[in-house]
């Protein structure tokens, strides 16, 4: 009486199966499977958009559609997927995070340089912070980002999925090909400890 095929069916994986691990989807996408690309998009896009909105300055948000920025970035990543050399198949997530952050920075710089209607660059009149900066403070976010940058891709990905995108342990286990939610929880605890180590070394006002 089950209306859906059971998860983990032994038959050949279909790209539309949402329980394929990210690595498997990436392999299918690299082989040109359009449905795998679509699945990657639907899996990440909504949460990435929420996340990115928190990191876009208010004035830039009025000029850019965050959803478009994120979707466009993700599509570009997927289009170039056959050129990405990933050390681990599940490194995709960290790559996307960086790509979206870079794109936001580019867009913000572009928006800041673009003159307003009266020819005055808007950045001079409205240097508003992002919602995240508003809530936490730009210096502390910088410290967090520098700490993250010192971690390996695996740790960065786990923290991004759990801390920033709010995926649950089971989802992360399935996305990263780990055995169990307990294994993920343990791995995240260690990643957090290494992040705290890295941030301790940064310290308040430390030079990157």
């Amino acid at each position, binding site marked *: 009486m089950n209306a859906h095929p059971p998860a983990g069916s032994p038959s050949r994986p279909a790209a539309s199966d*949402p329980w394929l691990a990210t690595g498997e989807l990436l392999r299918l996408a690299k082989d040109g499977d359009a449905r795998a690309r679509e699945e990657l998009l639907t899996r990440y896009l909504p949460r990435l958009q929420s996340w990115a909105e928190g990191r876009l300055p208010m004035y830039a948000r009025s000029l850019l559609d965050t959803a478009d920025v994120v979707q466009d970035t993700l599509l570009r990543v997927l289009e170039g997927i056959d050129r990405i050399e990933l050390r681990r198949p599940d490194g995709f997530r960290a790559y996307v995070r960086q790509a979206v952050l870079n794109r936001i920075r580019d867009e913000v710089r572009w928006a800041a340089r673009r003159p307003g209607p009266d020819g005055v660059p808007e950045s001079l009149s409205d240097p508003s912070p992002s919602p995240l900066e508003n809530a936490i403070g730009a210096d*502390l976010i910088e410290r*967090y980002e520098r700490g993250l940058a010192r971690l390996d891709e695996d740790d960065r990905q786990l923290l991004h999925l759990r801390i920033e995108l709010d995926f649950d342990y089971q989802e992360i286990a399935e996305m990263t090909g780990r055995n169990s939610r307990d294994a993920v929880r343990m791995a995240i605890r260690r990643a957090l400890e290494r992040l705290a180590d890295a941030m301790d070394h940064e310290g308040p006002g430390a030079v990157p």
Partner: protein
Amino acid sequence: MSIDRDPLDSLLDSISDGNPVDWEAGERGGTKRPRIESLRIVSRIADFSRGRQRAARDSTRGPERWGDLLLLERVGAGAHAEVYRAWDPGLQREVALKLIRLEAAGAALLDEGRAIARIRHPHVVTVHGVDRRDGRVGLWMEFVRGASLEQDVRTRGALEPAVAARLGVEIGSALVAVHGAGLIHRDIKPANVVRDAEGRHVLADFGLGLPADQAAARETDPSGTPMYMAPERFSGAAASERSDVYSLGLLLWFALAGRHPFEAATFADLKAAVERGPRPLRELRQDIPVELAAVIERAIAKDPAERFPDARAMVEAMRRMREEAPARRSSRAIALAAVVLVVLATATLMVWRARRTASPEVVPAPTPAPPATYSVEASFLRRDEGGASRLVNGDRVKPGDRLSLEVRATRPAWVYVLNEDEGGERYLLYPQPQFDTQNPLGADSSFVLPGPVAGRENAWTVSSAGGREYFLVVASPEPVPEIEADLARLPAPRTSGSAGYASVSEATVRRLRGVGEIGALPEELARPAVPRSRAFDRFRALAGRESEVRGVWVRQIVLENPRK
């Protein structure tokens, strides 16, 4: 007693799990201040990010799809689960979808869901399936429209004793089915019982049902709803059939008293109040029969050994009590004096045989989208000289009883009536080519099936004691291809001679089945067996109780037909 943990590990787990962080404990445990500061930053970023993510998810009506189901409306939300009204394109009907966060669910939930999905009972919500999709476990089930007992009593006041007694029998028999499936419900309470449009009570939530053997393993987990939780569970005893019996007794106390049994601001107060027990019901209401009060008092005895040993014993006690007060039930009799019954020599109509072991599957959508909403009413009538009485789920029938089905739909409908007895024999009772009344039945008129043959009124006759009779009434705005295909395989009607009883003797047929004989049918019209069909299982998976649907409408009606 707790196990000593590294305070840093506790901090890290709290941040990761999204729980409140005890920073002072971290400092007292010797975690260095710079480390605490770094983790505070991470914790604040985590709180901020999660808040935004959840707000974004909550601001919409949730994901638009879950698997194949189209989410229409969020109708409820708790700490660990959300409930949606959803459209199932496979079943072509609205369903209720309970989505549970995996972290709250644990690995046992899928097994639990599958066990629940095996339960088929008129007073237990029909679970169509359980699956894991999009990071959540979902349980999709019939969408029961109606008010919970909690809302009902709050808005309309306490129930009449006769209504409460019927509620006790209905939910008690539901509990028998739950326990029979190896589950302990653990969460019987007024909010989890829904009264549908026809006044029937349905046990409609399974949030905490656990297989009985696992319940024992979690015996110190007081995860039942405390107000209705049995006293022994406050001191760590395992949930059991007897603790469910207690909760049902207390639910009846609520229904009759019109208020919750205890008032307590804290868990300790509640525990003390439960220990004292609620006030005797007859101190609150003199019109409650002594026998009914006695059944409830026994169900909520503090000592589990003094309660009914199981739900079945409680149901039997309530049934006996109701039978001894038949006057309360007479209002259900509905006179249909105009109907003249002509019962001639009986012939056996044995149409549908299939094995009970066939596993249910989902029926391919029998109607194209988008279907219009329509409503159907269907109930069995017991026909006797000069009139008819309406039967409700759980009523008893006996050999010799003559049954008809009254059906009314708000649009033209193809109607099919299937029957299965406890021995697993299945029959198609309607339509048959020789009946005067044929599909589709017209809109907005009452039809009494099987209706006449050559102008003579008919009824289905209960021919032997079969234990329990399951009827499925299927209505559809279009012909249902699966059933029509089986009908097409029937041999052409014969107008003379004897068709016999296919490959089994009449004695065997009589022993195996209860209903199946048709009054007023000449023997030469008797049908041989047709190839096996799984339609019964498939449609039973769809059986709902709502009166308004799109697409296929299915109602299961169960009548008791006990063997002597």
